[in-house]
């Protein structure tokens, strides 16, 4: 039966109308994952050397044990953002005599086959057997490694529960912030050193199997927690939760100046705030506004000398002013897949839909830019960086994102609730950004290298302004692309829902 369920999952993805796109994304992601895991393994092999270099003269094992808790706090963060929740078409299976437990075990089991599950293994196995085994014997190495890996896996199950349970709620975001604060704040601000407090646990693990046993129990409890939560929520009402109508009759007045396109931008705005999935994207852009904090005040990126600034800042600037555009824009027409025919059926409907989306994305990008102005506190250069990247986003990148998004758009059912349907932000979404991130550097890097960083910025901004001047021409390219493929797009949207 399990095999049958797995086979069905395969058939489903093979027969998806966006299969070609999914394959390309999968291949691209596969390469990236292998590359990253390779780096990680290398880092694991040289971990001892790295630790020696960082902390001269100290015992590397002690240093690592004191630092492990921060690794797990970071793991919590990346799992929160990258780990995808398992998805299944539950409605079509619930009435059949397949026990719910079996479906849930399959679902949870499948989620475990992820590169995230072997990160800890890759990073710490060499260290365990090269360093710890020398001092504490092979059994010590195994106990220690077992403790570390099981802790990572506990986080996996815990995250499946946590993300689903607190999705779209303030409590969830608060917990994530508290964890962030715990990790950075405690040691940095000097309240208490979390690493020192937790270190004895890992030290103990090198000599005894008890910590490993404890972690095994935790891991099983985590699995049970997730399993139970998923099992208890396997009901249709959780799949399609009725929401209360929000923001009735409210619209963004500013949009009304743009005619029908503005009207559709207004509609799109309602779509965003009335669906969980899109709201999570909005929340993410708010989160990324704080992204600069990590980089701008960091001496590591600031001492480039010669009055310039780090290359990294361009990337950060593009993110801060354009994350919503990048993330939301990637699913350009998918958001409207449920009623795409509605637009086809109106005079100039598709044209205005695309224009409306442009309007909305640009407005949100502008708001992000305005909100990022306080970064001036760290120096005027950040204002220039944000201005240049904003212009570039608005003039060039937006067209690029939409152009790419129009390749075999995938239908998406917004009306389904989040349970078993979480198609929100995942690793694929983040990694697909990478090619788009290269674009600003193609303009910026030559000028920055030949002259200096500010000339690079000027070039970036100038290209952006040029793009804005030719805005109508460039949007027409994308509009025509939709018009040309409208039959394929609408038939693929109709099929899969």
């Amino acid at each position, binding site marked *: *039966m399990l095999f049958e369920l797995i086979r069905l999952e395969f058939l*489903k993805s093979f027969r998806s109308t966006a299969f070609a796109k999914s394959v390309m994304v999968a291949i691209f992601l596969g390469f990236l994952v292998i590359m990253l895991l390779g780096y990680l393994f290398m880092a694991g092999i040289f971990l001892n050397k790295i630790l020696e270099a960082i902390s001269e003269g100290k015992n590397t094992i002690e240093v690592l044990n004191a630092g492990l808790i921060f690794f797990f706090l970071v793991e919590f963060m990346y799992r929160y953002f990258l780990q995808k929740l398992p998805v299944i078409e539950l409605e*079509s299976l*619930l*009435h059949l*005599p397949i*026990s719910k437990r079996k479906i849930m075990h399959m679902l949870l089991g499948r989620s475990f086959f992820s590169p995230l599950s072997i990160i800890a293994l890759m990073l710490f196995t060499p260290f365990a057997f090269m360093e710890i085994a020398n001092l504490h014997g092979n059994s010590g190495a195994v106990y220690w490694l077992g403790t570390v890996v099981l802790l990572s896996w506990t986080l996996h199950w815990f995250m499946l529960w946590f993300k689903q349970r607190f999705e779209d709620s303030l409590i969830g975001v608060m917990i994530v912030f508290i964890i962030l604060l715990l990790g950075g704040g405690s040691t940095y601000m000097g309240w208490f050193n979390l690493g020192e407090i937790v270190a004895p646990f890992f030290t103990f693990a090198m000599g005894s199997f008890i910590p490993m046993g404890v972690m095994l129990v935790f891991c099983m409890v985590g699995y049970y927690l997730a399993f139970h939560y998923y099992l208890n929520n396997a009901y249709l009402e959780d799949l399609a939760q009725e929401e209360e109508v929000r923001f009735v009759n409210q619209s963004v007045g500013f949009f009304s100046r743009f005619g029908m396109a503005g009207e559709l931008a207004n509609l799109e705005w309602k779509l965003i705030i009335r669906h969980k999935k899109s709201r999570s994207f909005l929340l993410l852009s708010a989160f990324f506004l704080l992204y600069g904090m990590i980089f701008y005040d960091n001496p590591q990126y600031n001492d480039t000398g010669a009055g310039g600034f780090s290359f990294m800042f361009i990337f950060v600037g593009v993110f801060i002013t354009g994350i919503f555009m990048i993330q939301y824009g990637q699913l350009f027409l998918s958001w409207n897949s449920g009623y795409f025919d509605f637009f086809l059926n109106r005079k100039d409907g598709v044209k205005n839909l695309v224009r409306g989306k442009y309007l909305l994305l640009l407005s949100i990008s502008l708001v992000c830019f305005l909100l990022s102005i306080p970064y001036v506190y760290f120096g005027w250069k950040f204002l220039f960086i944000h201005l240049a990247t904003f212009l570039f986003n608005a003039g060039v990148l937006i067209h690029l994102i939409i152009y790419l998004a129009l390749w075999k758009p995938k239908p998406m059912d917004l009306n389904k609730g989040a349970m078993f349907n979480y198609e929100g932000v995942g690793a694929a979404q983040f990694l697909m950004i990478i090619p788009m991130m290269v674009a600003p550097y193609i303009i910026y890097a030559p000028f920055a290298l030949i002259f200096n960083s500010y000339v690079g910025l000027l070039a970036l901004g100038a290209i952006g302004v040029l793009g804005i001047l030719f805005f109508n021409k460039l949007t027409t390219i994308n509009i025509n692309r939709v018009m040309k493929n409208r039959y394929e797009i609408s038939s693929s949207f109709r099929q*899969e829902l």
Partner: protein
Amino acid sequence: MIQVKDLKKQYKETVVLDVPLLEIPKSECFGLVGNNGAGKTTLFRIMLDLVRASQGKVEIDGKDVSKSEEWKRVTGAYLDEHMLLSYLTADEYFQTLRKIYGLSEADLQLHLFKFTEFFNDEIVGKKKYIRDLSKGNLKKVGIAAALMGNPEVVFLDEPFENLDPSSQIRLKKLILQEKQNSQVTFLISSHDLNHVTEICDRIVLLEKGKIINDLKDKSEMLTELDAYFTG
């Protein structure tokens, strides 16, 4: 066969379903009628444990449906097209169900043979995904699937909707046949009073979540229902 006790479904303050007691004996053809929003589909969904009851319970064969899952083996249902695996062809879907129900190839052929007329050569052997079928053909696939594996109880929500007139007549024949030959208990909700009064032994009228009439006399059914719906 089926017992509903003190059943209540509430969304926040609004009570959408309130059934103190409902008993459906074996091999009865049970019809459920009522205007839009009366709670027909919700009742079926709770009976199938697809939606939680706020209060009370449903028992099939003396077992609470939310506590065990054995009843699923003897219960067939087709409420809407989400119950189908839309990315399979009809043939593949039947094959998948065959494996799930543990039937032999011959069993399946025998089962599908009963539907030859009903399918009208548009379902079996067609290279078309279920998602591409017309609404009527979707319904046909769903109904045939619900009747698979010799169920004792079959739930059908609006089975006559979207079917052409000759298919509607064939479906009525099929239901009566199954009832006679295999003692299947049918639960059917419908807006088509003529059809439902013709095949059902008993009709329950639902209004705003409450049972307001329980008709068992076949000769009176149609006139009483007509009076209610026109009135």
